[in-house]
């Protein structure tokens, strides 16, 4: 795994985090022309992960893994929960080929859900963490990630337009 991780192709090696503090939020970071301007890191207030799977035990183990990884990486964990009942998709068919309507067989596909929340991640942390846990996604589990990105008000919307 270590070797695999070493060969991971990171989209951007390390994104420099422009130290966003309350004092210099409004003023853009001034950089010299020679050095390529470091791309300011994005901020994500919340990362919501929805897991779907056929086996609740696998989902539970995976949740444990993701939470442990978040602990090691120093990510703030939020609520982690799963609905009590799985979603059942049922099909009811005749048991016989075409007669005996009272005798049916029922097939169902169950989908178990599990939700995890993580809070306050920077862009590079989020990429690292997501890539790590997505790579270790076990078979038969689908992952859905909702990311809430924080942004400033666009430049042209800060002041009302002067004369229209």
């Amino acid at each position, binding site marked *: 795994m270590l070797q695999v991780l070493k060969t991971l192709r990171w989209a951007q090696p390390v994104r420099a985090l422009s130290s966003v503090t309350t004092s210099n939020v409004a003023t853009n970071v001034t950089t010299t022309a020679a050095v390529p301007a470091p791309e300011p890191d994005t901020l994500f207030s919340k990362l919501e992960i929805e897991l*779907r*799977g*056929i*086996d609740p035990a696998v989902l539970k183990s995976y949740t444990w893994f993701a939470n442990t990884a978040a602990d090691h990486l120093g990510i703030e964990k939020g609520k982690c929960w799963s609905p009590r009942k799985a*979603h059942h*998709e049922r099909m009811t*068919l005749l*048991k016989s*080929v075409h007669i005996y309507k009272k005798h049916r*067989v029922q097939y169902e*596909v*169950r*989908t178990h859900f599990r939700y995890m929340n993580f809070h306050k991640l920077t862009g590079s942390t989020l990429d690292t963490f997501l890539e790590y846990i997505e790579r270790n*996604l*076990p*078979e*038969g*589990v*689908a992952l859905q990630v909702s990311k809430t990105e924080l942004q400033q008000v666009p430049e042209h919307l800060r002041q009302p337009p002067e004369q229209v």
Partner: protein
Amino acid sequence: MNFLKKLAPHIALAESQICKSADLHTSAVCCRVQSGRYRITTKRNRPLTYEMANPPHFIAHRKSWNSWNTSTLLDSQRPAQTAVEDLFIRKFITGTWHALTCSEIIIKRQHNTIRIASIIRQAISPRKMYFLIGYTEELLSYWMQCPVTLELQTVADKKDVVFKYI
């Protein structure tokens, strides 16, 4: 001879119709009540693996699924294609490893890779086995257009996988 000439278009038509009907390949209906269940023999000597000993309604209770993918879950894509591909993989492997597979073929899909697990009898030499592994992986990955890995376990004899006799 003229008679035959007259007949020729009819024959051609009949042939084309035969060909059309031959396009649809049908197999015997697997009755939903009987499929996956085995009858007791009088001599009580039918060997069953663990998989065969538990009928389908025990899936997720006593035994687990043979195909692991996300296509059957709620709101997911390609359920039909995945099922057909799995069927093809099963047929291909049982045919390629002829009379060697002792268990069901387990197909696990993780991201875009397919991992195929199975129990194989040690009836052929390891060299042949290595060849077959490479052959299967290469061909399947060409057809499925994704990496395929074979993860085999071998047993010395077919009786090793037998769970009970009925």
